[in-house]
């Protein structure tokens, strides 16, 4: 009975690990095949994931730039207000 459980454990290991390997191997083939089919027969104009990513980044970059510029202007403006004579002097 107690030897039994080890035997059962070994069996479970063999079949379990076997199934995992077979399953993921099939998944490797299925995925590779799928990717090839999609990219050959249904290609996207430009890889969407990247585009959206870069679009976001572009928008973000612009937003950051605008905000920094606003802050910058604001500081410059403040500096001018603090030195009332500066404008006339420039």
């Amino acid at each position, binding site marked *: 009975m*107690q*030897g039994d*459980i*080890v035997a*059962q*454990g*070994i069996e*479970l*290991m063999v*079949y*379990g*690990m076997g*199934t*995992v*390997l*077979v*399953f*993921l*191997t*099939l*998944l*490797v083939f*299925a*995925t*590779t095949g*799928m*990717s090839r089919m*999609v*990219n050959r027969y*249904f*290609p*996207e104009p430009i*890889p*969407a*994931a*990247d585009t959206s990513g870069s679009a976001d980044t572009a928008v973000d970059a612009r937003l950051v730039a605008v905000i920094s510029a606003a802050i910058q202007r604001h500081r410059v403006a403040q500096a001018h207000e603090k030195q009332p004579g500066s404008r006339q002097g420039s």
Partner: protein
Amino acid sequence: MENLAQLWSTSGLAQMSLGQGVMILIGMLLLFLAIRKGFEPLLLVPIGFGGILANIPGGGLAYSAVENALYSGDPLLLAEMAQVLGLAEVEQLKAGLAAASLHSMTAINVLALEAGFSDGMLYTFYNVAIASGVAPLVIFMGVGAMTDFGPLLANPKTLFLGAAAQFGIFATVLGAAGLTALGVMDFSLADAAAIGIIGGADGPTAIYVSSVLAPDLLGAIAVAAYSYMALVPLIQPPIMRALTTAEERRIEMVQLRPVSQREKIVFPLVLLILVALLLPAAAPLLGMFCFGNLMKECGVVDRLSDTAQNALINITTIFLGLGVGSKLVADKFLDVSTLGILSLGIVAFCIGTASGVIIAKLMNRFGSTPINPLIGSAGVSAVPMAARVSNRVGLESNPHNFLLMHAMGPNVAGVIGSAVAAGVMISLVGG
């Protein structure tokens, strides 16, 4: 006076057992680890707090109405319960209940409810969220909706690494069986299978499998799984360094190709079909995972995807955590089997890490494209921690070598791998 005695007798101090005190301290320790040390706080804060609540003496928050009746000890009620089971002695009641048929349990439950006992709060949370299987599945859906299969699709061979790392699971099953054979522990094969799944480094998978195969061990298994996932940055690097040469750790990998949105949409369906054809027992877990991922990638149900990633997964996590806490009740958790589970769990992590690294070495040696063996350890899952560890150890040897995206492939493959392993276990042991 009588009231004062009643108040005192119902107070916690009068009823506290040593075990409950110990468990409250363990709950505090989990909270400390979660809050101060950052150990998987999203789960360990609710689990730790639930563990404290479960062990409030006299609170009975983790017990069913029947258990609460049993511990309150009203002799007439207990006699009635024993009678339902056909037991001569009330002392046999506890054993009798464990073996009772569903039919007698229903009758006994009615007795307990009519006597004014009710299910504890945490017991209800456990039943609704975990015993029903719903909470782990919903969390898996949310995880699916947060997972980007891009790196995996760019390099599908990394799926092998996700498979390899599951060896930790099965080696641990064997270990648990061996300890039982040696008489050190007393685990059934179902227990062994549930313990092994800790090596999958996947909280919801571990909880799901335990709830099916070994509900009594669920508390210890969940605590072990989440604690060791948090310890991945400590556990893995020594093993990774020991099994690789400095040369190997410096290997730079070719940049991943861009992956189209259409591939990302079709992938969860391919995975689903493969599950349907080969391993229906994994269908609930992987089905919900693929569903979440499809919602994310298809781009037409963003409001559902957002909810799956936020409100729904958060609500479920709260009740899952508190429900797991209900299994930290002293008389179930403080058992020698818990020590066994904790020891076997860390062994599972180590073996999984090692197998992943070794297979990556082999793939590097015998394959055409260079593979840095450090990404093999990410195959245990523990997303995204294990991938970050691969990246960090890689940077030590080559400061210009960013392995993060390469390691994300095996990392998400490990999630699939352990869900497949869970399916095999349930199919072979639970059936």
